């Protein structure tokens, strides 16, 4: 790990703070924080990498000398931008206009701030390339339509002064609006809701004016709405989208128009016949949505994704994105964004009037779309998906019913716990007995708690030394919780790590690490069992608490012998062993239990196990030493026991569960041992 120290700590890194904004990106408008690498806009820099290498090659190596005289940024502009800028450069001063600086760039061309020499005024000049397919007829048509748009006279429309063409590129000069594009302004400072509604109402009236003069805008978006210094909106680029769209493929259209986030569905699918005044109503609604929520109605990572969203999904309720938005205003906005043009406002004027009603706190005309209407729309849009979904639901319901009836699915028992074999981390492999013994002891104590379902050792031992997928194990055993742990014993020092895990949620309910001397280990199992019971909120009866509190022995040597006996007992229960081996292990277990009893004659559980194994191995039943009542209890408990569901675990039951058959009156091995046993079970 030493090499971590050798990390060069260059101090050249900018101090990365999370909250300090150092500036706004002039390209995308995003906030740039002080942790931005090299102070660059991370968004724009990452997006640069999205461009395919072939696109990047447009930059210049493949076109040496072609664009090197361009003004700024031409390198990364699309082919239209390059050509437009080249035209501007080649024109030098572009006729009567002295180009001063580039103030905007889009898919359609480049906008310059310019000085009109003859009138000595500042204007904006937009240079547009129509691409390589532009014929003379096309250029003429562009000119005619641009001139038609130029005839619009409205305070809310940026007036066009002059239209011209040069070398396959068209240009027009227009009034220079001091202020900025709506999206830039809105990004700098979020717009209050009422102000947004007022603004869109004004723009809608402006759009209606243009519609009355037979001109559609077709590309209403925040970038085409300029705000002057008083904050008044001015629409620009009227009809331009259509000029560029004409005689072009849909692909080309998308490329030219750039982001389709504000595009109406009928435009996105290239259905020119369906495009009308309500297409602009959609655009107005999309801009309103942007102002209210801070994001366009649909925005995917790519043009394709955005169009797919636009065609296949409904916009999210504005109120979900900005709870301050009034329900009526949200309704107005969503009515504009209806996929079906017939369901939108019939005109921009109708939209403006509804917005003005809202501003005057009057009832609006638009109706809120209910959940059923939304469902119906979805069905209409996706009939195949709806059919498929209905079939799947029916199938799932049928399958669910069958499974339910067949009790195929078992709900895991929430108060159930499986104690998995503990891992032996001791350096000495001979200490495996210790881990096995501790695990068995914990299991035994947990099993004595009636409110818990504890999986028996027989069922859990299969998971020894296999990779553990806890959720799968829990599922197989039908319990929600799993206890796993490890034991490390070095000389007299013992470390026990245990963790109780809810396998359904893969979360830790409780975990603890016990570092003890061997002599202090006695009673740790009880403590662990108690903590597990608490974690699983199991209710303990007074007797159960007492039983848990009892320390089985105070003699560490007896305890050690007992654990060794347990380990042999566990191994003897493995079904894969031949009966002779199993018997050998049982005998070893018995001898260790007897050793434990020799060391501590009051070691009740050791006594019980010793006696049980003696009985099994000698086929002699022992409980005749008990009174009739005790025997009755023992029998009842034995009946209630089964392999996977251990319950009471007193010494009696240990004897009982180990006995396969009790055939007759047992014969005590000696009266003395019988008395010691009775004394032991009473304590």
């Amino acid at each position, binding site marked *: 790990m030493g090499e*971590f120290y050798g990390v060069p700590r260059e101090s050249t890194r900018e101090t990365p703070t*999370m909250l300090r904004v150092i500036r706004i990106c002039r390209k995308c408008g*995003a906030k740039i924080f002080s942790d931005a690498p*090299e102070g660059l806009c991370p968004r724009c820099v*990452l997006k*640069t990498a999205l461009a395919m290498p072939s696109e990047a090659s447009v930059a210049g190596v493949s076109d040496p000398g072609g664009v*090197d005289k361009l003004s*700024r*940024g031409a390198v990364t502009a699309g082919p239209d931008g390059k050509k437009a800028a080249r035209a501007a450069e080649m024109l030098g001063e572009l006729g009567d206009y002295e180009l001063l600086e580039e103030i905007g760039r889009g898919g359609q061309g480049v906008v310059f701030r310019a000085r009109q020499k003859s009138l000595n005024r500042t204007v904006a000049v937009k240079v547009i390339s129509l691409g390589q397919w532009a014929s003379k007829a096309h250029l003429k048509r562009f000119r005619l339509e641009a001139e038609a748009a130029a005839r619009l006279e409205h305070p809310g429309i940026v007036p066009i002064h002059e239209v011209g063409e040069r070398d396959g590129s068209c240009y027009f000069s227009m009034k220079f609006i001091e202020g900025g594009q709506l999206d830039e302004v809105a990004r700098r400072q979020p717009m209050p809701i009422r102000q947004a509604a007022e603004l869109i109402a004004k723009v809608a009236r402006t759009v209606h004016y243009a519609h009355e003069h037979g001109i559609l805008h077709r590309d209403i978006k925040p970038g085409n709405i300029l705000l002057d210094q008083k904050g008044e909106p001015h629409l620009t680029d009227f009809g331009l989208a259509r000029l560029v769209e004409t005689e072009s493929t849909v692909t080309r259209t998308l490329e030219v128009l750039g982001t389709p986030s504000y595009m109406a569905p009928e435009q996105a699918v290239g259905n020119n016949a369906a495009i009308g005044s309500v297409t602009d109503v959609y655009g107005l609604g999309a801009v309103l949505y942007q102002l209210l929520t801070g994001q366009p109605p649909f925005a995917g990572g790519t043009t394709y994704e955005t169009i797919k969203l636009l065609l296949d999904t409904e916009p999210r309720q504005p109120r979900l994105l900005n709870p301050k938005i009034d329900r009526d205003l949200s309704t107005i906005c969503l009515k504009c964004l209806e996929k079906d043009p017939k369901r939108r406002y019939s005109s921009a004027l109708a939209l403006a009037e509804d917005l003005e009603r809202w501003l005057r706190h009057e009832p609006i005309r638009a109706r809120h779309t209910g959940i059923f209407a939304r469902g119906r729309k979805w069905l209409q849009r996706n009939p195949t998906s709806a059919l498929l979904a209905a079939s799947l639901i029916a199938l799932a319901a049928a399958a669910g019913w069958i499974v339910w009836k067949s009790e195929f699915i078992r709900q895991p028992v929430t108060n159930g716990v499986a104690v998995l074999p503990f891992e032996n981390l001791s350096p000495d492999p001979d200490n495996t007995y210790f881990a096995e013994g501790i695990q068995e002891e914990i299991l035994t104590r947990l099993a004595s708690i009636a409110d818990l379902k504890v999986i028996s050792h027989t069922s859990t031992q299969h998971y020894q030394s296999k990779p553990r997928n806890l959720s799968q194990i829990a599922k197989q055993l039908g319990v929600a919780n799993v206890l796993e742990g490890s034991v490390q014993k070095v000389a007299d020092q013992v470390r026990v790590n245990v963790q109780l895990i809810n396998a359904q949620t893969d979360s830790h309910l409780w975990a603890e*690490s016990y570092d003890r001397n061997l002599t202090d280990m006695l009673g740790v199992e009880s403590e662990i069992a108690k903590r597990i019971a608490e974690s699983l909120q199991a209710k303990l009866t007074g007797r159960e608490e007492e039983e848990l509190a009892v320390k089985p022995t105070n003699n560490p040597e007896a305890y050690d012998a007992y654990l060794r006996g347990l380990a042999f007992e566990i191994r003897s229960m493995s079904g894969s062993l031949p009966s002779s081996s199993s018997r050998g292990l049982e005998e070893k277990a018995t001898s260790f239990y007897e050793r434990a009893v020799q060391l501590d004659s009051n070691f009740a559980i050791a006594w019980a196990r010793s006696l049980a194994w003696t009985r099994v191995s000698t086929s002699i039943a022992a409980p005749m030493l008990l009174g009739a009542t005790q025997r009755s209890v023992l029998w009842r408990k034995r009946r209630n026991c089964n392999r996977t569901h251990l319950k009471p675990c007193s010494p009696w039951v240990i004897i009982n569960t180990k006995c396969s058959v009790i055939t007759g009156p047992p014969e005590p091995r000696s009266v003395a041992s019988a008395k010691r046993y009775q004394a032991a079970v009473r304590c």
Partner: protein
Amino acid sequence: MPVDEDQASGDQVAPRTQRGMVAFATTQWSVVLEAQGESPAAQEALENLCRTYWRPVYSFVRRQGLGPEEAEDVTQGFFAHLLERKRLSVVRKEKGRLRSFLLGALKYFMADERRRATAIKRGRGQRLIPLEELRADERIDMEPADPVTAEMIYERRWALTILEHVLSRLKDEYRAVGNAALFDSLKQLLPDEPGSPSQADIAAQLGMTENALRQAFYRFRQRYQSLLREEIAHTVATPGDIEDELRHLIAVIEA
């Protein structure tokens, strides 16, 4: 200071991969996945990855409401725990991306109170990750003040770390051949931000012809794209995930 145009052409800036191709065979995360963390090479690869991507982890931990010191300890402890485990059994289940794996492992680690307690001890002792790079003001500013989730902070920090690493590598390559000034100029062109110095301005400033500068920038951008894809490749399982991961990083930054 004028820059030698031959140098600026960038041929010797760094060994470059074929256009659009990313050397994936030795990708660090895929090495870890393939060996399931058990080979020395996989351990080394994982250590390298942890050393690069500790910052998102630290940001996440801080966002959980931990103080700077405690967060440092938990971060150290987390990586110590991750690297000390010989078997990395979790890796077997995670055939996905390093970003998701680390976040999942971190959540699991933090949920485990016992480990956390030991991790604090462990972290204090070993200092595996150079957290000293955190400046004082970062510690202050990363206090939970924004209504953003720890996951969002983690994701954003992840994207920035990748970008930071890539630009740092690119800078080192240029610096190694004495072109540090060229790097500083060309990087401004990368986002294509209006109002930035034009290529003509930069060419004049560096005493280069515009043609030479344009070619230098072309190579600069190609190299940047290549390095970025290479770095992302280090964190995903298959080459097919690179583009998707890149889009994810952009989406994270935009969020």
